């Protein structure tokens, strides 16, 4: 009963305090929204790039061009030996005829026709090696280079490395930007609550003189900071929810993020925004009230 009264008192005073100092409170809330929008954007881009990376990694394999003139028996032997290498999931032999058929199909997809002017074209036979994990690409490539029946090896490892590099840069810059905005928000909230505390210095003094405990003095201000964070988080989540459907085609097309994954991701993002909003609000007001109360007895 006593605790319920304390909570009721603190929430009511926080609400009154928020609106009494409306301009400052709304300015602090706006900066919370700015920070959370940046955070949400960063989170979406990084999640999208990670999803894209997974997609690319799933396609990482090793393609080996084979020496001309291998007999079917030699080719079968080669496939069997490569399939036995550690990390190899599957090996497909592409004969010169199949390679030519693929090339024709690729041209046809572009609406063109493959035409060598009647020349007799003989493409190289290849083997396409699917890997259990992209990390095996290097070892498998090394094993293949030692073989005389393999003339050239290509992998998509370089593309993966480039993508990982881009993601790391975006992540670092993004975290730095969110961190800086986060600090600004923290200072805004500290300042807002400090002004609120000073504007109610008389009330605080009276509360102390009549024997109010520190909790009764401190919590309304902390809740006021939390309220800035809470409103900021709710507005940001509403904004993200509003743009979520329109950006779905982009998430699928650019980042290969399946819709089922993206729903789960949206729930995680909402939780993150709530957590960060409330956390920054609570931390800022706690710092502000603590420094004020520590200076008075």
């Amino acid at each position: 009963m006593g605790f319920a009264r304390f909570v009721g008192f603190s929430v009511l005073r926080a609400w009154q305090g928020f609106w009494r100092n409306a301009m400052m409170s709304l300015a602090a809330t706006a900066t919370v929204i700015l920070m959370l929008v940046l955070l949400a954007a960063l989170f979406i881009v990084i999640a999208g790039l990670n999803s894209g990376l997974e997609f690319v990694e799933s396609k990482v394999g090793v393609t080996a061009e084979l020496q001309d003139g291998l007999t079917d028996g030699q080719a079968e032997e080669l496939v069997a030996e490569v399939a036995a290498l550690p990390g190899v999931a599957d090996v497909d032999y592409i004969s010169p005829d199949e390679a030519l058929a693929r090339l024709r199909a690729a041209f046809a997809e572009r609406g063109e026709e493959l035409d060598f002017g009647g020349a007799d074209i003989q493409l190289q036979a290849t083997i396409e090696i699917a890997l259990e994990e992209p990390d095996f690409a290097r070892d498998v490539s090394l094993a293949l280079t030692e073989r005389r029946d393999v003339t050239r090896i290509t992998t998509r490892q370089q593309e993966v490395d480039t993508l990982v590099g881009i993601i790391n840069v975006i992540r670092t810059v993004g975290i730095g930007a969110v961190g800086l905005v986060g600090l600004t928000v923290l200072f805004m909230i500290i300042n807002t609550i400090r002004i609120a505390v000073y504007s109610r210095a008389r009330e605080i003094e009276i509360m102390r003189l009549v024997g109010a405990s520190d909790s009764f003095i401190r919590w309304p201000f902390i809740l006021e900071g939390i309220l800035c964070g809470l409103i900021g988080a709710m507005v940001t989540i509403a904004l993200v929810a509003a743009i979520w459907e329109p950006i779905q085609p982009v998430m699928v097309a650019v980042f290969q993020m399946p819709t089922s994954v993206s729903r789960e991701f949206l729930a995680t993002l909402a939780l993150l925004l709530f957590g960060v909003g409330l956390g920054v609000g609570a931390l800022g007001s706690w710092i502000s009230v603590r420094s004020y109360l520590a200076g008075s007895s």
Partner: protein
Amino acid sequence: MTSLLRRRGRPQPPDASVIGLSGVWMTYPNGKVALADITVDIPPGDFVFLVGPSGAGKSTFIRLLIREQMPTSGRVRVAGRDLLRMRRGQVPALRRRIGIVFQDFRLLPSKTVWENVAFALEVTGTPRAVVRERVPQLLNLVGLHEHAHHLPTQLSGGEQQRTAIARALVHDPPILIADEPTGNLDPVTSWDIIQLLIQINQLGTTVLMATHNQEIVNAMRRRVLALENGHLVRDESTAAYERRY
């Protein structure tokens, strides 16, 4: 009305002081001595004046009693508690045992008389039903029942001080400290406030009043503590005090 402030709880032995300072020194970091070797005992139910020129140490004396400051050395006991051994978390409980009023009333201008008094109860977690019962009792005691819904700006100085006194009494404290309560009031209103303080004292509350008002001190014939440059230069009845000055 009389039952409102009748002292409750365990009866105290007749020699127990409600305020006790023993060898108290208070020196500020700049070296200024605010209080020098003060030893005072005030028994329950006493009405004591604290006098002295500005800067004599009256405010420091009061701040020590409500534990806004700690002495450099010595012992301070208030309402049966040793303030030096008291933890920070215990200070609110001490302050509910001490009512305090000031020269400038310190009311919240946006709250009515009723709300100003109720505020002191609400911020200490008092149930709403108790607040509704207690506030009218206190407003009756100080004669402000009819002004319950007025804002402080709509009241005279005397009425504002009465509101502050009602607020100081919300927790039924055994001690009431009045720091220059008549400093901002005209002579007639000052006597009105003194009359109220006497009534409160007669109901069993110990009253310590800091004042510059020589006329009131002389007329009241109560115990007087006189401070000068931080030293307790007199501690005697008003009759003896009057003979000297």
